[in-house]
C-alpha cells in the first residue's frame, strides 16, 4: 500500500445557483492576460448543454482521455508516445480557438470620445486577438440557462444514450429542467495531460496531488490540450505554453481556500484531504474492463483515514500528522466515502478525476402523474391549449418518494455524467438526499409524520445521526467545516518551490540566487 494524500473537492450541485462568481474570481486572479483571455480554468455550464469548449464531452470529436480495448491496457485516445511524436508537427485533434470562442472586448472609449452627433455612439466589439472589429458569435456561457434549445441543450453529448422519445419528453416545455455544472481541473490520479506531454513539463505534486505545468519546460507541443478529456488544459496562444488550473496552490500553501471556493456564493464547494492507494492506480485503470465498474473501483482506492493500517502506512510514507488529522476531518471524505453521496465526473475517461459531485436532486424532483386538465382547458384561449398534455407535475415532497424513476429528469442522463451509465448509483444517492429532506421536514415543519420519516431513512439506508450530519454539512456548515486542509507549513512551503538551503545565510542581501561562486 502506497498511501498518498490529495487535496480534493466536492461540488454540491443542488446548491449551485449558476452565478459564475467562481469563474470571475478565478479569471481576475489567474487568466486576465493576453493569450489567456479565452481560458476559464473554472467555468460553470448549463446542463443539458454543449458546455465549454463546445461538446467537450464528445471524445469522438476531441479524442481526450484513455481508451481501453478488452484485454489490453488503457492507452491515450488521441496522444501517446508514438502517436504524439508523429503528430507533433500538426496535432490533428487539437481544438482551435473557435471551439472555445474568439475573445473580445468593446471599444468603450468610443462612447466618450465620439463627437456630438445625431446618433448614439456605440461601443463596437473588437477581437482581443486581431484588435479588429468583429461579430460576436460565441462567448463564455453562450448557452447559459438555455435548456431545451436545439443548438445547445439538444446537442449535449450525454443525451446519446437516451432514446428519441426520452429526449423529447425531457424537453417538453412543462418538464424542462436544467442544472449547473461548475468545472475546474480534476487533478486526476491518472492524468492524461501528464501522460501526453512529450516534454515532461506536466507533473503531479506528490504532497498534495496538484497537477501543474512547468512553464519553462513546456514547449508548445500541444498534446495535453488534446489528451485532457475535460479540456482543462488550455493553450496560451500568446506565450505558446499550456496552462491549467493550479488549484490556487499559492493560496493553499498560505492556508487560504482556492479563489473559486472562497468566493462561492452558493457555498457548494467543500475542500479536504483524501488518502488514496497509489499502488492500485494502474490496476484500476488497466484491468477494469467495464466502464460501469470504474466508479466503485475508484472509490475503493480512497482509504479510510481512521484505519490503523492506513495510518501506519501513511506515516511510513512520510505523510505528516497534520495531514492525517485533516484527512480525518475531511468534508470530502464524508460526502464521498462515509455517506456515499458524491461521484466523479465522467469516470469512463479513466483519468481517475479527484473532484466529486453530489448529483442534483432539484431538477429530478417532480413526479408525473396522469391528470385531466379538460375543465381548465375549456376556459382557455385555443391558442394556449397546447399545454394540455394530460400530465400533472407534482413537486410536493410527499409524492416523490418511490417515483424517482419517473422523475422529469431522466436518471439515465445523470448516470451518463457521473456514474458511467449506472442508474442505480444515481438513484441511491437521490434517495438519500430526498430522505434527508423528508426527515428534516418532519423535524422542522412537522407535516410529515415520524413513521414516514423513519421509514424513508431506513429505505435509503441512513440513520438519524447520519441524516443530521448530511443536513448540517449541506445547509449549516461554516467556512471552516467546508474548508479543511492541513497547513502546508509555511516554513516548508517555500521548499516546494526552491531549495531553501541555498539561500540560507543570505537573507537580507536581496537576492535569491545561490551565494555561490563558479569563477
Amino acid at each position, binding site marked *: 500500500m502506497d498511501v498518498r494524500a490529495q487535496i480534493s473537492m466536492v461540488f454540491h450541485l443542488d446548491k449551485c445557483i449558476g452565478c459564475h462568481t467562481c469563474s470571475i474570481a478565478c479569471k481576475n486572479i489567474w487568466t486576465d492576460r493576453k493569450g489567456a483571455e479565452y481560458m476559464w480554468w473554472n467555468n460553470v455550464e448549463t446542463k443539458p448543454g454543449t458546455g465549454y469548449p463546445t461538446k467537450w464531452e464528445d471524445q469522438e470529436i476531441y479524442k481526450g482521455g484513455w481508451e481501453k480495448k478488452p484485454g489490453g491496457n488503457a492507452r491515450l485516445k488521441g496522444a501517446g508516445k508514438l502517436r504524439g511524436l508523429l503528430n507533433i508537427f500538426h496535432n490533428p485533434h487539437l481544438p482551435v480557438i473557435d471551439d472555445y470562442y474568439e475573445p473580445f472586448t468593446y471599444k468603450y472609449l468610443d462612447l466618450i470620445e465620439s463627437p456630438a452627433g445625431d446618433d448614439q455612439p456605440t461601443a463596437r466589439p473588437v477581437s482581443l486577438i486581431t484588435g479588429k472589429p468583429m461579430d460576436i458569435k460565441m462567448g463564455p456561457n453562450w448557452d447559459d440557462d438555455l435548456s431545451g434549445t436545439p443548438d445547445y441543450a439538444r446537442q449535449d453529448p450525454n443525451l446519446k444514450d437516451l432514446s428519441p422519445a426520452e429526449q423529447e419528453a425531457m424537453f417538453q416545455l412543462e418538464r424542462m429542467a436544467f442544472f449547473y455544472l461548475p468545472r475546474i481541473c480534476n487533478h486526476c490520479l491518472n492524468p492524461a495531460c501528464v501522460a501526453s506531454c512529450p516534454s515532461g513539463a506536466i507533473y503531479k505534486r506528490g504532497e498534495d496531488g496538484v497537477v501543474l505545468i512547468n512553464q519553462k519546460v513546456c514547449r508548445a507541443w500541444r498534446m495535453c490540450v488534446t489528451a485532457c478529456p475535460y479540456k482543462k488544459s488550455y493553450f496560451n496562444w500568446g506565450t505558446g505554453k499550456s496552462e491549467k488550473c493550479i488549484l490556487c496552490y499559492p493560496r493553499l500553501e498560505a492556508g487560504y481556500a482556492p479563489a473559486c471556493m472562497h468566493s462561492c456564493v452558493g457555498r457548494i464547494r467543500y475542500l479536504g484531504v483524501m488518502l488514496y492507494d497509489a499502488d492500485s492506480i494502474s490496476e484500476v485503470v488497466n484491468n477494469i474492463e467495464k466502464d460501469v465498474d470504474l466508479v466503485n473501483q475508484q472509490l475503493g482506492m480512497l482509504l479510510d483515514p481512521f484505519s490503523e493500517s492506513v495510518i501506519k502506512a501513511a506515516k511510513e510514507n512520510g505523510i505528516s500528522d497534520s495531514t492525517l488529522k485533516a484527512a480525518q476531518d475531511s468534508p470530502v471524505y464524508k460526502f464521498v466515502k462515509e455517506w456515499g453521496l458524491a461521484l466523479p465526473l465522467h469516470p469512463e475517461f479513466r483519468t481517475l478525476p479527484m473532484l466529486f459531485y453530489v448529483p442534483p436532486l432539484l431538477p429530478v424532483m417532480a413526479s408525473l402523474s396522469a391528470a385531466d386538465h379538460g375543465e381548465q382547458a375549456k376556459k382557455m384561449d385555443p391558442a394556449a391549449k397546447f399545454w394540455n398534455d394530460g400530465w400533472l407535475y407534482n413537486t410536493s415532497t410527499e409524492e416523490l418518494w418511490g417515483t424517482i424513476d419517473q422523475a422529469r429528469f431522466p436518471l439515465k442522463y445523470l448516470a451518463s455524467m457521473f456514474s458511467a451509465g449506472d442508474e442505480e448509483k444515481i438513484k441511491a444517492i437521490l434517495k438519500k438526499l430526498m430522505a434527508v429532506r423528508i426527515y428534516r421536514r418532519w423535524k422542522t415543519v412537522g407535516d410529515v409524520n415520524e413513521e414516514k420519516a423513519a421509514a424513508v431513512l431506513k429505505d435509503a439506508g441512513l440513520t438519524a445521526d447520519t441524516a443530521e450530519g448530511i443536513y448540517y454539512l449541506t445547509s449549516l456548515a461554516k467556512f471552516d467545516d467546508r474548508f479543511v486542509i492541513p497547513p502546508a507549513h509555511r516554513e516548508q512551503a517555500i521548499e516546494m518551490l*526552491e531549495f531553501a538551503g541555498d539561500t540560507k545565510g543570505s537573507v537580507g542581501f536581496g537576492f535569491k540566487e545561490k551565494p555561490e561562486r563558479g569563477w
Partner: protein
Amino acid sequence: MAILDNFLLIGLPYTALIVFLVGTIYRYKATKFSYSSLSSQFLEGRQLFWGAMAFHWGILFLFFGHLTAFLIPRQVITFNSHPLRLLILEVTAFAFGLIVLFGIITLLVRRISNPRLKPVTSRMDIVIIALLIVEVVLGLLVALNARWGSTWFAAVLTPYLRSIFILQPDIAAVSALPWLIKWHIVGAYVIFGLIPFTRLVHLLVVPLHYLWRPYQRVLWAWPRKKVRDPNSEWTFTKPGNN
C-alpha cells in the same frame, strides 16, 4: 576571389558555428521560457496542416539525406554507381525539395494572409521563412543545373565539411564549384548561425526522451521519506520542478 571564398567558406562556417554554440547555450540558460517554437495551430489549423506537414517531413528527409552523404560518402557513391538507383535517389530528393518548397510557401502565405496570426508572428519568423525559401530554391536549382548531386556531394563537399570540422579547412575543391552551389552552402551557414535567434531552437529540444520516460510523473518537492533517512546527505534534494 580568393578572399571572398576564404570568407564565405572558412570564415562564415566558423562564425556560424560559434554563434550557434554560444547563442543556443546562452539562450537556454538565460531565457529558457522562450526555448520553443510558438505554435500557432491553435489560431489556425487547416493551412498549417498542409504547410507544416509538407515542410517538416520534407526537410527531415533532405536533412538526413545531406547528413548521410556526409557521414557515409563511400556507401552513397557505391549505391549511386548503378544509374537507375542514382536516378531514383535524385528524383526522390528533388520531389522532397518541391514538397518542402510547397510547405514553406504555404506557411509564409498563411502567416501573411491571416490577420489572427499577426500578433504571434515576429520579424525573425519572416526572416527565417524567407531565408529558407531562398535556400530551398537554390537547392532545387543546384539539383537541376548541377546534376547527380548525391554523388558529387559525397566526393567534393564531404571532404570539405570534414576539413572544417577537424579545423584544417581545405577549400581547394569547393572554390572551384559554380557559384550557385556556393550560395547554397553559404545559405546553409547563415541559417545555421541564425538558429539561436529564431524559433528554430525548437529543433534542439525535440522531445525524444518522451519515448523512454514512464507516462506518469509525480514530483516530491520534499521527499520526507528520504529526509528521515539518517544516512542521506542533507543537501540531496533539489526541487524537481525548476
